[in-house]
């Protein structure tokens, strides 16, 4: 059982929903990322998703792309990110999960990447460019170390395929709200609630919704039908915008924003 499995077992028994912020590692630097993770957890984040900057992220919209470009421009390396995570993981009582391109994992070595996450107390990984057909080898490696390998289902996934993905995912299922790239959206697809409700009846795994989720109204609408919500670009944008105002101000601004979403969860 990974830390994520334990979290959702607890949340389901207490009828609680998870809120999971996403931050880009190394934007603007690793020390900041560690501090913002601590703040988000202190404010009530149930889990934290940490984006490993990648040079060619095709699933990402302008906000996250730009954050990756900034981090890589500052020569942020995987080794430094893993060390930062190793430092933060024991300081927070919630699971951390990396969002990481397969290009990076392959280059680092599948075994080695999994071993290093496990060693540093990170709970698992989301690999947005690894479809289910290509995932068996990594899934095995993750399972052997009690790491979750979270798979994604999207509006373009046919039902039979969704069931196949659900059967191989671990930790939770990442339900992508829209056919598209990451980024804040005011409108979410009208059939989203229906789709997620269907999926949740098909699988014992928790289902979390991400892509576009950014407003308290989204939280109020989606929390009842899902196990958790993932908020990415809205956080990354706030970090980028607030940075000129100094670290402490930025960190508490991001914390305040999470607070407004958490309030909508109640």
């Amino acid at each position, binding site marked *: 059982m990974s830390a994520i499995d334990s979290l959702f077992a607890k949340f389901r028994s207490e009828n609680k929903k998870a809120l999971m912020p996403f931050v880009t590692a190394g934007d603007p630097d690793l020390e900041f990322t560690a501090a913002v993770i601590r703040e988000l957890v202190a404010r009530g984040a149930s889990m934290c998703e940490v984006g490993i900057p*990648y040079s060619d992220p*095709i699933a990402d919209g302008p906000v996250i792309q730009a954050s990756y470009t900034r981090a890589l421009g500052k020569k942020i390396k995987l080794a430094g990110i893993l060390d930062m995570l190793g430092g933060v993981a024991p300081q927070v009582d919630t699971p951390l999960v990396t969002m990481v391109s397969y290009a990076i994992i*392959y*280059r680092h070595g599948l075994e080695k990447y999994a071993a290093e996450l496990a060693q540093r107390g990170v709970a698992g990984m989301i690999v947005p460019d690894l*479809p289910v057909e290509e995932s068996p080898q990594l899934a095995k490696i993750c399972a052997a170390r009690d790491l979750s390998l979270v798979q994604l*289902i999207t509006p373009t996934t046919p039902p039979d395929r969704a069931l196949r*993905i659900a059967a191989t995912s671990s930790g939770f299922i990442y339900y992508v709200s829209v056919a*598209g*790239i990451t980024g804040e959206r005011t409108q979410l697809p009208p059939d989203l609630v229906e789709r997620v409700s269907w999926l949740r009846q098909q699988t014992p795994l928790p289902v979390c919704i991400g892509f576009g989720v950014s407003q308290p109204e989204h939280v109020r609408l989606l929390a009842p039908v899902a196990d958790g919500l993932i908020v990415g670009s809205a956080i990354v944008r706030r970090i980028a915008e607030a940075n000129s105002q100094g670290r402490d101000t930025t960190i508490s601004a991001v914390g305040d924003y999470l607070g407004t979403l958490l309030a909508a969860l109640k």
Partner: protein
Amino acid sequence: MPTTPHPASPQVPDVAGRFGEFGGRYVPETLVYALDQLVVEYESAQADPQFQVELDDLLKNYVGRPSPLYHAKRLSQVCGGAEIWLKREDLNHTGAHKINNTLGQALLTLRMGKQRVIAETGAGQHGVATATACAHFGLDCVVYMGEEDIRRQAPNVFSMKLLGAEVRPVTSGSRTLRDAINEAMRDWMSSVETTHYILGSVVGPHPFPMIVRDFQAVIGRETIAQCRLRFSGLPDLVVACVGGGSNAAGMFFPFVESTKVPLVGVEAGGRGNQPGDHASPLTYGSPGVLHGSFSYVMQDEDGQTCDVHSMSAGLDYPGVGPEHSYWKDSQRVTYTSCTDSAAMAAFDALASNEGILPALESSHAIAEAMRLAKTMKKSARIVVCLSGRGDKDASELARLKGVKFG
């Protein structure tokens, strides 16, 4: 001890899109639906005799195929060795091999009932060929092109607009072909249900490397038939330039089992062999993942794609098609790298000795053929894929040579 590699087979890729260990499909789940749809449509098109009839008719009467196989006698004489023959893809409608692929994929677009097409382009040749196919069939067309390439291939940008396409400048990263592919993929993420992505080379996720190779294989098939007719045999050497690798794959694929014919792929050597100075992943790179495929790539120790350089926009790409990686590791094809300056010298040689302005991309292949010709017997024959014409490069060449117009 080096192990003997498995011989390359033409029976690739497998159902997972693997050429040996290379290829596959490393893309967001959102795109899998469209890729599966494309696989199904392509299979049904292959089983439909009407599809090939329609494509052949277009290739003959619209593109002007077969393209000639031309004996470049004066160039051969100047080199003083083997005979150099040119497969004249530069004489195709739109001036390069790219049209072979875009017409095929445009027909697939219609079969899938999609009305909108997107494409990436580097040199602008694929963009023009896509815009042309879309104008021909009445499809909407958006072409993504890096800002740096918009600058150095300006004539093609204007042509695309004349053909009714929208050209969207890409300002991320190195503002070249790689970034244009990223942006086209991102567009496709949001538009898969109504849009087909006409990828322009043998790169990307399965089934693109297979489909593009198959549509380009007309180059090699014609070459074999023309060689039989002109000199009753096969050539002693075949040379093609490699950006993503589509003209080379189209030329080489029909030769794969003719193991007596050596095949040479020429990558962009840029300013030299230091990282960042060239675009030669097969020569200097390592296996990794880029744009949905596992293949040789220029990457750093973390798997981040490196910036590359070539004066030629069509070769200025850090990755390469997975079948080339397969041919490299199986030793069926030899890959080498040619510098900007050697390619420029070859451009001049072909222009002044034959009256042909080659594309800067193709000039890399000409340079290598000229180099190798000198080492071969006079009776030997080299076929070079002259993948495109150089009109688009005139102003950039003038800039590189420090010449001012007018």
